[in-house]
């Protein structure tokens, strides 16, 4: 197995072992999905907005929680030093950790989307499906967006000093949320998610993933080790 996948697998196992944070996130996901489904019951045309927005928020929320665990805690506890002495390159370690956080975060996002559709269908007593553009959103844009957020937060956690690191992660998290709210207000009239918005979000996410991947060239072991204390 490739080293990145070994790292990712370990991170996912650790996330699954930590029942409290998992239950906490699943609980949140169920709560927001039920609330969104209740909204859909009143205004069925809002199904697209709910499926567009809630899974993204839940995915990003879990990404924020899990990157804190995967990147921040490992740096704070200096476990990262031991990892950097293994025959795995820094970029592979970073990417493995990014995958280890992004995969469960995406799973939470999809879980939320399925819940919204399922509960809305039960409440409306008819099977409802989001529009094809929303299916594309869930299958392509959402994982890309989650990956972009995890990459960026993870990168900053490794790069910044321990004092700045928490602030940096929270700032990124807030910016992403702000952008999402901004996006929602742009969607505005008629609660329709246009192809343009979808493509813009997809391209922005892709660009962020590529940009962060490029920036990891500037990440060094020395930078990580000297910012631990």
């Amino acid at each position: 197995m490739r080293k990145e996948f070994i790292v990712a697998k370990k991170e996912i196992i650790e996330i699954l072992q930590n029942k409290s944070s998992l239950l906490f996130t699943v609980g949140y996901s169920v709560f927001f999905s039920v609330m969104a489904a209740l909204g859909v019951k009143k205004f069925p045309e809002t199904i697209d907005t709910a499926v567009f927005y809630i899974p993204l928020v839940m995915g990003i929320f879990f990404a924020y929680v899990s990157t804190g665990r995967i990147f921040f805690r490992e740096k704070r506890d200096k476990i990262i030093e031991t990892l950097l002495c293994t025959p795995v390159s820094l970029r592979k370690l970073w990417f493995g950790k990014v995958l280890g956080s992004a995969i469960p975060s995406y799973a939470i996002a999809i879980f939320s989307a399925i819940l919204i559709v399922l509960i809305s269908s039960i409440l409306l007593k008819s099977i409802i499906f989001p529009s094809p553009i929303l299916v594309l959103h869930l299958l392509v844009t959402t994982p890309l967006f989650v990956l972009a957020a995890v990459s960026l937060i993870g990168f900053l956690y490794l790069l910044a000093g321990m004092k700045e690191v928490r602030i940096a992660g929270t700032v990124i998290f807030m910016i992403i949320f702000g952008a999402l709210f901004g996006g929602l207000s742009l969607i505005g009239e008629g609660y329709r998610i246009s192809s343009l918005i979808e493509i813009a979000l997809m391209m922005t996410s892709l660009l962020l993933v590529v940009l962060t991947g490029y920036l990891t060239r500037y990440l060094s072991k020395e930078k990580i080790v000297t910012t631990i204390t």
Partner: protein
Amino acid sequence: MKVIEVKNLVKEFNGRKVLDGISFEVEEGEVFGYLGPNGAGKTTTLRIILGLLNPTSGKAIVMGKNLAEDDEARKKVGVVLENDGLYEDLSAFDNLEYYAQLYDVSNRKEKIEDLLRFVGLYERRREKVGVFSKGMRRKLAIARAIIHDPEILFLDEPSAGLDPEAQRMVRNLIVELSRKGRTIFLNSHDLDEVQRICDRIAILQRGRLMVCDAVENLRKKFSKPVTAISTTDEKSAKRALEILNSLGISDCNINGKIITFVFREDKQSHLLRILTESGIEIEEIRKVTKTLEDIYLEIIRRRK
């Protein structure tokens, strides 16, 4: 064969020199102790050797390779740093399995079980590391460090913060590994530990290497022929002190009924006769050997 070569190593942080021209070599199969007070630069040296920091100038080579540049070369090295490098939410077995995968270890299950038996944690292999005592974690960290059968083991303060029993367990483990032919680089504060297990030591002070030699050679170099005489009472000790002073013997110290002084060993019988003829009853006369701690403190004070 030299397995670690450190040459003229200099490291500066924001213009402040932390290491100032360090050079030493470690031979294959040797247990090498790297000593120094807090802030002397021990961990910085270790980090440079391991490729975690880049030297400002000079070089650190392990088995002919620079560990910072060669991912594969790091397979020949095992490390136990300040942190154990263990995951609390994973079991002892899963922790070892993770590292075994990262090091491409074959026959993982068998190897992990053998190692867990070796460090005495086999019965607790399924328990999460979070519930382990510090001593158990240290032992597991050593197992983790040797999972891929490295040729060199770097240990940073392996018994720091452990109770005496756990310290002994860790020490015995290191001795056992050394017997198996592994080269061990031991970064330590614990002079007793170093004295017991190291073949050679280097003492670092404020970024400079003060000495680098075998423990026995250092003893010879730094030891003056100190003799201790134990008299029957304090009064006799005071009289003996007067006699020693009248004979021109220097560096005499009195502590209760014991006097220590620098004196040539071959003239001890002559001195003993003078003292007994003066009516002083002597209970014991012995040569005082300097401990590594004495030597270490002498070197550190000299530099200050």
